[in-house]
Each structure stands twice: as structure tokens, then as C-alpha cells.
């Protein structure tokens, strides 16, 4: 009898200690294959403070992530923590109820900027479904060595910019690395150049409210500015894809690259000797306010079917801390969405400076909520315009016609 009690006691103690040390393993999926090391380091920081939680980070190829994630969600095998895209990309999972609302679960969200929060707010119920992770800004990169060699300085106006491009061309470089094979790079190009000509926030607010539409002359004329850049793009630029653009700039064959701030870290890793800097899209007249397009790149959310929501919330709270944000910013060379971050990197400091006058990246923020999205309409139409298949009137007509099939304020 005594023995039996002892055995039972032993079993009980053993089971209880197992229970105490039992680690919860959370799955965390992402499309950031380039950032695996940094995420693992961040996860280690979290695990140190939460020894009972283990997080497994898996990154999928960007082009396949959506499909893999959607099927996993449908099949009920989705990870506990999901790296989500912003705006419409979040809405597609938030609206049907696949995500956990975080308003009361992650109190730190209250301190995030409006631009960051707009990317994680569902249009359906107004709740927040993710902790924003990075803010992106669209800029013009330039090669400082070439600028110094040719005695050029950062342009302020459109004419100065064109003059710089012409000078670089004369010196035998490709002035602008951008091409048109990948439609989305044209949308980015438009996001850098056009806002300063269509009237940035004034037009954005009006078009979002349905007070004007894309056939507005301000918008159409701003698109024509892109045509003026064609002589400075690579020969056969319609065949130049995204990776070609990067290689042209990194290998100092091209002097400018118009793109997102997410490129900076990649440029440095490919060519540590590359001396580059950034400036905002040029303006029509000296002294005009120079706007940059910016947007929330995405967020971390929790799958509503997760068995470990409590633990996942703990991790999400961690992603909203300055500790997380600062490490993220310093190591990925991107601007964390967490408020109160002080980037050490010179370029990132400048990005923050440029963001004093920011305007929402128009199609992503306003019109990528439903198919046909403003982005998909614009990207292909811009390809048509840059290849002289259609003119700017036709571009805005196609965009307007497509967006108004679902955008309520246009249907009034």
C-alpha cells in the first residue's frame, strides 16, 4: 500500500512537472525569406523572457505565400501567428473572421501612427487585426559617386531632375535604372513622381471620398510626367525587369533607381562599396512641398482558429515594444512601425525626415480592397502607356471604369 502511494505520488509529481515545463510551440509564417536570421534573433529575445513559449518561424517564397496561406486557413492548418500584408491584403482574411481582433489585446496599438494603423483596420468592422511591422516610403535613389564626379547636386524641381538625368546620360551612364517589364515597378515609379503633380493629399482625399475620380485632369496630367522619363531609361526598357533594375543600380551602371526604401538594405548587402543616397520626388516649382508616398507594409496577426491565442498575444505585444522595433530597424534597415524608434542609419534618418510630408500610396491605401484593384488596372495600363499602346486618357479611363465597378463612392 505504501509502495502504491509512493508510486502514485511519483507519477503525480512527474506529471505536474511535465505540465509546468511543457512548452507551447507557436507556428509563425512569413514571406520574408530574406529576413529569417533577424526574425530568429528577435524570437530568441522573446523566448528568453517567455521560456514556456517556443516559436517556429517559417518563410515561404513571396510569390507563393498567399496561395499557401489561403489554403492553410481554409484547411484549418494555418499557423498561430501570421505575417499579413496591409489594407486589402489584410481585409481578405479579417472580413471573413479568420483573424483575432487585437484592439483590447495589444494596448500599445493606441500609440501607433495613423498611417500605420490604417493598414490594419478592417473596413468591415473598424477593428484592428494586426501589429504593423514596417513603414515603407517611395523615393529616388542616386549614386553619390557619379553625382560627385559630374559635379551634380540633388535636384529639387522636375526640370533640375531632368537636367541631371541628361548630364548623366551624356557621361555614358544609364540615367535611370527603371524598366517596365514588371508592372508593379511602374506603379512604384508613379507613386514617386505623380503625387507632387496631382496634388498629393488634396487629390487623394477627394478621390477617396468620391468627390472627383481618376479622370480628373490633375491625375491624368501627372501620369504624362512618366513619359518624359523614357529617354533616360535603359534601351529596350520595356524588357527590363525588377532584378535587372537592381543590378543596374548596384553595379553602378545606372545612376538613379526609383523604388521603395526596402531596397536600401539589399543594395548595401550586394555592394558594400556602393555610395548612394535618396531624395524625394521632384516638384514643379522651387519651394513647393515635396511629398513622398508612404504606406504600412503589413502586420503580424493571429489566426482565429489557433489553440494558443493567449501565447500568441504575448508575442504580438512583444512586437509592439520599442525593443523589438529598434532591433528590427537596426538590423533590417527598414523603418519599424513601432513609435519612438531612432534609426541609426543615415538613409533611414533621412526617410523619417522626408516623411514629414507624406501622402498615402494611392492605389494600395485607397483602391486595393476589391477586384479589379486600382493597382492591377493601373499597372497594366501604365505598361500600355509606356509602350505607346495607349495614351494617358485611355489609362485613366480604364482605371476609373474598373474601380467604379466596386468602389461605392464612385457609384453615387
Amino acid at each position, binding site marked *: 500500500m505504501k509502495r502504491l502511494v509512493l508510486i502514485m505520488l511519483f507519477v503525480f509529481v512527474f506529471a505536474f512537472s511535465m505540465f509546468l515545463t511543457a512548452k507551447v510551440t507557436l507556428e509563425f509564417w512569413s514571406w520574408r525569406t530574406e529576413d529569417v536570421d533577424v526574425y530568429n534573433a528577435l524570437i530568441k529575445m522573446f523566448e528568453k523572457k517567455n521560456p514556456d513559449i517556443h516559436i517556429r518561424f517559417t518563410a515561404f517564397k513571396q510569390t507563393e505565400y498567399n496561395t499557401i496561406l489561403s489554403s492553410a486557413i481554409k484547411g484549418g492548418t494555418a499557423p498561430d501567428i501570421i505575417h499579413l500584408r496591409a489594407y486589402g491584403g489584410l481585409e*481578405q482574411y479579417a472580413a471573413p473572421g*479568420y483573424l483575432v481582433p487585437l484592439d483590447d489585446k495589444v494596448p500599445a496599438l493606441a500609440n501607433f501612427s495613423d498611417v500605420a494603423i490604417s493598414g490594419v483596420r478592417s473596413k468591415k468592422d473598424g477593428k484592428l487585426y494586426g501589429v504593423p511591422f514596417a513603414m515603407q516610403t517611395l523615393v529616388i535613389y542616386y549614386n553619390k559617386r557619379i553625382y560627385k564626379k559630374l559635379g551634380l547636386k540633388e535636384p529639387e524641381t522636375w526640370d533640375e531632375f531632368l537636367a541631371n538625368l541628361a548630364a548623366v546620360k551624356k557621361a555614358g551612364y544609364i540615367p535611370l535604372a527603371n524598366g517596365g517589364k514588371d*508592372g508593379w515597378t511602374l506603379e512604384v515609379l508613379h507613386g514617386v513622381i505623380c503625387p507632387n503633380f496631382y496634388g498629393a493629399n488634396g487629390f487623394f482625399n477627394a478621390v477617396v471620398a468620391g468627390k472627383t475620380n481618376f479622370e480628373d485632369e490633375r491625375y491624368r496630367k501627372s501620369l504624362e510626367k512618366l513619359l518624359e522619363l523614357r529617354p533616360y531609361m*535603359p534601351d529596350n526598357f*520595356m524588357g527590363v525587369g525588377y532584378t535587372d533594375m537592381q543590378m543596374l543600380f548596384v553595379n553602378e551602371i545606372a545612376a538613379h533607381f526609383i523604388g521603395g526604401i526596402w531596397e536600401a538594405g539589399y543594395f548595401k548587402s550586394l555592394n558594400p562599396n556602393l555610395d548612394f543616397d535618396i531624395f524625394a520626388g521632384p516638384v514643379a516649382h522651387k519651394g513647393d512641398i515635396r511629398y513622398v508616398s508612404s504606406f504600412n507594409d503589413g502586420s503580424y496577426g493571429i489566426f482565429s482558429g489557433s489553440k494558443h491565442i493567449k501565447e500568441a498575444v504575448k508575442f504580438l505585444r512583444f512586437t509592439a515594444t520599442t525593443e523589438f522595433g529598434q532591433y528590427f530597424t537596426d538590423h533590417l534597415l527598414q523603418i519599424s512601425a513601432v513609435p519612438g524608434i531612432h534609426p541609426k542609419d543615415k538613409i533611414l534618418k533621412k526617410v523619417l525626415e522626408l516623411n514629414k510630408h507624406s501622402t498615402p500610396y494611392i492605389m494600395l491605401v485607397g483602391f486595393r480592397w476589391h477586384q*479589379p*484593384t486600382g493597382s492591377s488596372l493601373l499597372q497594366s495600363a501604365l505598361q500600355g502607356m509606356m*509602350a505607346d499602346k495607349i495614351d494617358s486618357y485611355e489609362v485613366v479611363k480604364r482605371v476609373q*471604369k474598373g474601380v467604379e*465597378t466596386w468602389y461605392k463612392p464612385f457609384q453615387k
Partner: protein
Amino acid sequence: MRSRRAKQGLWIAIFVLPALIMVGIFIIAPLFLSFYNSLYNWDGIKRRDFIGLRNFASIFSQYPYKDRFFNAIKHNIIWFIATMLFQNSIGLFFGYLLSRRIKGSEIYKRIFFIPVTFSLVAVGFLWALYLNPIWGIVNKTLKQIGLSGLAHTWLGDARLATPTIIAVNIWRWLGFPTLIFYAGINNIPEEYIEAAYLDGSNEWSLFWKIIFPLIIPSVTIITVLTFIGSLNVFEQIYVMEGLDGGPFYSTDTLGTLFYRTAFGSVDTGLPEIGIGSAIGVVIYVLTFTASATSALLLRRKEVEL
């Protein structure tokens, strides 16, 4: 007697069943599922309300689905015509030459077939590099031999993109029809051809009067396969131009349109599973009816040996 028959039937069933289950789960069931899905309204990846054939109506009548659909199907037709015209007629010619035992035909036979064994994705990727307007070997070579006028933006020019991808595909796939036609011609009994020669036939009439009618079964197979292949073409375009069938939808086909619509393209996309499924249904209805009718029509032309 009867029990033996039943036993035999049982054995056949046992052998057929695994394949039948596989086909049932992975081919038949998805066909019906996608038809089922196409009858619903979708909220992202969640099925909502039954809407009958409204998704089909959208494909055929609503901007921009209608434009995209007819544009895509136009490119599928171009794929079919160009492949029939170039790949299969060259294949027939090569198959004929090989069967005439020209010098080195054994080596050619192998060389022609090598690209067929290559991975489609690798071929597309490598050719996209060769055709790159900046670093690509094609334009560099053309410029070096003084033909810079011929150095085009192969994959970035809306007029050239589809023909270029078709040409790459022909390069890869030519060995297949060549081998089928070669085998077909080899199957023709020697006496027929000797008899034709004895009757004073020349090569031209020998080919058209004797050989071609006797290899109609091979022609049927190749035509039907080309048709199915052209309707379902996807990988080559996905690898060389991406999901958007760019530039400016000039390489879009039903395959890329379907994928993009059903799963959402990478940078702009939100999935539209209802519309996507409807496109899928249209693709398989087209494939089925067209291959069935073409098989029937061509079978009539077959000559018994």
C-alpha cells in the same frame, strides 16, 4: 464458368481501383468542386451566397473580366495555330527525314529529343535570361554580328512577347512530335512504299498519297495534344512573364488568367475564387468538347492498314 469470370472481374477491379481512386480524388472531384465553387459568391476565401451562373455571366459580359477573358482566349488560339503551323509541321518534316535514314539520323533523333526531357521551368528561366535586353546572350550576339537592328525587346514588346515564348516552347517540345511522326512512319509496312516506288511514284506524291494518310492516327494524337496543351499553357508564361501575362496583357492566356483570378496575383491581387473557378470550368468544358470533336473528325479520315 461464371465464377471464373467474376473472379477475373474482381482481379481487374483490384488492379484498376488504385488508379481510379487517384483519378477520382485528384481529377474528377476537383472538377465538380470547382463547378460547385463557381456558383457561389466569395468573400475572400470564404464561400458566401449561391448566385447561380452570375460568375459566368461576369466573365462573358462585365468589364474588365470580359476583356481579359477574350484577350486570353485569343492568345490560346494563337498558341494553337502557331504550334500546329510551325512545331508540328517541322516535326512531321523531321520525322519524315529521320525515317528516310538520312546520314546521322540516329544521332539527330537523340538530339531532337533532349530538350523535351528538360524541366519546363528551367527552360523558361534560362531563355528569359538569354533574351534579357541588357545582359542577354541573344541580343549581344546579334549586335556582335552586326545585326543590331534585329535586337529586340523580346519579352517586353507586346507584339513580340507571345511569339517569342511560343518559339522557346517549340525549341523545347519539337522532339516530341518528331518522334511520334517518326514512329508512325516507321510502322508503315515497307511493301507499301516499295509498291509505290514500283508504280513510279515520286517522293512528293509518296508522302501525300501513301505516308500521310497512313499516319493519320499520329496526326490525331498530336493535334489533340497540341490543342489541350495550348488551352492549358501556363508555366512558360508564368516563368518568363509572371502571372500578369505582361506586358500589357500581351501574353495572358486562360491559364494565367485563371491562376491570377482564383489565387490573386502577387502584388495586386485579392483572390476571386468564384470567378476563377468559373474560368476553370470554362477551360475544361472547352478542352473536353474540342478534343472530343477533333478526335472524332480526324478518326473518320483514318485509313486501315
